[in-house]
């Protein structure tokens, strides 16, 4: 015991020196490595001559990043070690007051979001120009309501729908975007050919997608794990290839354009005497439609959440979660795992279909381009990053991933740092990957790794992620 006590102060003294040394070594290594790779650049000029450009500034940045990062890592190592020790609690902690009320605060914010944006924009306009104009705020809000609000909420809804299949029932589905496509094309085709209204086609798109969910579910009932993932992936591709090649119906890669917009109880969002703006005596603007769509997708997403929360307290929801934990035990308790799996596929697919028909109504144009595998992967990434089964976690993950991508377009100052030909959007996949690795290292179970029990006898205690399983298929 004693010698350790003696050594300890010495060690903590030398941490700084050690970190400094390691930082310098890392810097030197980086210098050696990048000196020729980054420090010099060869180009051909117009006369085909080779010219050497020196980039000492960039090289300095590289070296500094390496040195500083190494220094910080080494310097904080003892502290992190200490924290790891104290943080090893198996029981999930009771959520703080903020985390408990977070869903309510978030919900309230979502409902006032468009007006908040308009007000803030109008205020900033007034601050900079001294002119108060509410209308300019309305016009400026288009980008924030459409690109941020609607875009994020579509993905929130898709991720919540997929959460039923992956997070609750534990069935890995890599082809979820297929149901999104079925919903979108159902609306696009039926509305352009038969002129059905959005409100009729919205539930129909859900039903069609659910039917396709069952059709996919049947052959994959016996599959698990990797095999299930591959078959669902193939299913997603099959749907996309059908959309491309069945040109007589889908017009192939050209896509279907001129899809009818949604209406508010029969009031169309068009310029003119019968339009929404004219009826309310507002100046003509496309923003109203976007704000209407924002509230529509918000309500659809909330419907998904409400159904998910209700279903978890139903026997079927518990059977899904039990299926994720242990399928054989489920069958030994008299649960028909076939119908249980199929209902999970169908319910998840239905919400995908709703989101799809909304997507078609919002874009006014659908093409197979929108339903590539990458979309499935992004939606699945949201579910995994957010924490499988947790609605709040998944919503945060969707907001961060989609909002983050949109935000990258806004970062003009990066051009001043990296030069004018730097386009931050191109790096979004790199940043996605980085973010995923960071989150998975820091929180392997996602943002919200714990699970809320569906029933309790004395006290609702959250179940730590240590105990829950990810499912086997």
């Amino acid at each position, binding site marked *: 015991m004693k010698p350790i006590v003696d050594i300890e102060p010495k060690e903590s003294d030398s941490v700084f020196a050690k970190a400094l040394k390691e930082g310098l070594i890392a810097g030197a290594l980086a210098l050696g490595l990048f000196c020729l790779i980054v420090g010099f650049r060869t180009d051909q000029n117009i006369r085909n001559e080779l010219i050497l450009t020196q980039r000492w500034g960039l090289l300095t940045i590289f070296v500094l990043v390496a040195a500083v990062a190494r220094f910080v890592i080494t310097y904080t190592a003892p502290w992190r070690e200490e924290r790891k020790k104290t943080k090893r609690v198996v029981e999930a902690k009771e959520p703080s007051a903020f985390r408990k009320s977070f869903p309510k605060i978030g919900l309230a914010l979502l409902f006032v979001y468009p007006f908040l944006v308009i007000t803030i924009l109008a205020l900033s306009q007034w601050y900079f120009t001294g002119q108060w104009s509410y209308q300019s705020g309305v016009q400026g809000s288009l980008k924030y309501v459409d690109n941020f609000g609607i875009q994020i909420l579509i993905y929130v809804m898709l991720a919540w729908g997929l959460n039923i299949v992956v997070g609750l029932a534990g069935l890995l589905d890599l082809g979820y975007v297929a149901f999104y496509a079925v919903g979108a094309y159902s609306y696009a085709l039926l509305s352009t050919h038969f002129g059905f209204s959005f409100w009729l086609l919205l539930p129909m798109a859900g039903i069609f997608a659910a039917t396709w969910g069952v059709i996919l579910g049947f052959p994959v009932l016996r599959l698990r794990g990797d095999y299930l993932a591959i078959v669902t992936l193939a299913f997603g591709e099959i749907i996309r290839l059908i959309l491309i090649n069945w040109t007589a119906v889908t017009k192939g890669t050209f896509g279907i354009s001129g899809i009818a917009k949604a209406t508010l109880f029969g009031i169309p969002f068009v310029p003119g005497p019968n339009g929404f703006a004219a009826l309310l005596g507002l100046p003509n603007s496309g923003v109203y439609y976007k704000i209407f769509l924002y509230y529509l997708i918000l309500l659809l997403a909330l419907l998904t959440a409400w159904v998910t929360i209700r279903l978890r307290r139903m*026997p079927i929801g518990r059977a899904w*979660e039990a299926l994720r934990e*242990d399928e054989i035990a*489920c069958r030994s308790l008299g649960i028909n795992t076939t119908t249980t799996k199929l209902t999970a596929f169908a319910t998840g697919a239905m919400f995908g279909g709703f989101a799809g028909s909304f997507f078609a109504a919002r874009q006014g144009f659908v093409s197979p381009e929108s339903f590539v595998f990458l979309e499935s992967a992004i939606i699945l990434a949201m579910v995994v990053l957010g924490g499988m089964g947790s609605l709040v976690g998944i919503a945060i993950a969707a907001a961060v991933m989609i909002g983050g991508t949109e935000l990258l377009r806004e970062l003009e100052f990066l051009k001043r740092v990296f030069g004018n030909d730097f386009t931050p959007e191109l790096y979004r996949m790199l940043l996605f990957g980085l973010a995923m690795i960071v989150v998975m290292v820091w929180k392997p179970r996602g943002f919200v790794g714990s699970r809320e029990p569906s029933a*309790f006898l*004395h006290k609702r*205690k959250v179940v730590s992620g240590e105990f829950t399983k990810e499912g086997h298929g």
Partner: protein
Amino acid sequence: MVSEVQKNTSAILRVERLSMKFGGLIAINDLNFEAKRGAITALIGPNGAGKTTVFNCITGFYKPTEGMLTLTRQNGEEYLLERMADFVITKKAKVARTFQNIRLFSGLTVLENLLVAQHNPLMLSSGFTVLGLLGFPTYRKAAADAIEKARFWLEKINLVDRADDPAGDLPYGAQRRLEIARAMCTEPELLCLDEPAAGLNARESAELNKLLLDIRAETGTSILLIEHDMSVVMEISDHVVVLEYGTKISDGTPDMVKNDPKVIAAYLGVEDEEVVELIEQAEAAGVDDITAAVDLLSTEALHEIVEAHPEAEPVELIPAAAIAEVASSKARSARKPVAKKTQPTATAAAIKAGSTSNALAGPRGGKPDKLILIKGIGPVNERKLNEHGIFHFDQIAAWKKADVIAAETYLAFDGRIAREDWIAQAKKLAKESQVKPAPKKTGGAK
């Protein structure tokens, strides 16, 4: 209970000509037996005898190659189990099962585990989710009833306090009990338990016996169990079926089976070399089993003496009975040396050095208390305590600080006696044994 079993002698499960082949391997070969309604039937046999395969056939997890499994429900309905899917067997034929390696839903809470087991009735009352989703009161009432039923079983298995903890967080013994309660929540008429006492300590397996007898007495559920722990089999079962290499070698009451030479041969083997092997295995397994092995060796030696001098020893039957005893009752093998073997060592070597102040030369009245009833004392420590002259609860209850230190020295403990509060436990047990001098049978020794 016995009278009830005799009164209602109809078989709940009839297994006829059951065969199960996996490729060339014959796991079960032409097996016939019956499980009586309201009785506890035990299926025993050496490892690999095909017991679990029989279970998997009964519960539909395997489809038997040949044979008929007839289940007769209380209301007279008959089901041919070999034709039904596994989940239908639980749903319609009311057969529930547990697993050899516990299969709980570890990420769900204890309560949720019991609610999942009530899936089918809840599904009906929720109108296949539709009515429940719309918030109809029928489902709300059914859900409340389901929680009450879960609470009833939680009280039975003594886990009410941990109802809201994840099932994976429970200790092993509690997980076993929870799995039984979960199976009972499906309201079965036949409960199939696959080694329910595996991995339980003496106290837990005594509790398990009580739980199973309780289940039968209160719900009238018939029980079919696979078990290696003979203290469970011999104490609670009404009927024992012994399998070896997929064939039935014995069938009857526990006493009958225990003395069946075929069973003894199946469990012990017959050659001397095999006995030596058994002892080596026991040594490798741990000190606990050495007593059993030594005991076995001594009876084996006796047997040889008898064979060598048949005229000198008139009591030939004793060794055979002793072998049967060892074979059938692991429990007694631990209990017997206490009475037979350690007592002489204690008297011969007087009391070992470093003993506590109130050590006795031998148990009062020649009958030591069951010290293993104290939480923290296992068979090994009991023997050590006996060797140091501690035989009774009141002796431990009277320990002073110095005695505790002395005892911990020879038990090689570090403060465990105080931590587990042996002295208070012993006081309580001593008082109990004074109130009713014959302590109730616990079957605790293992």
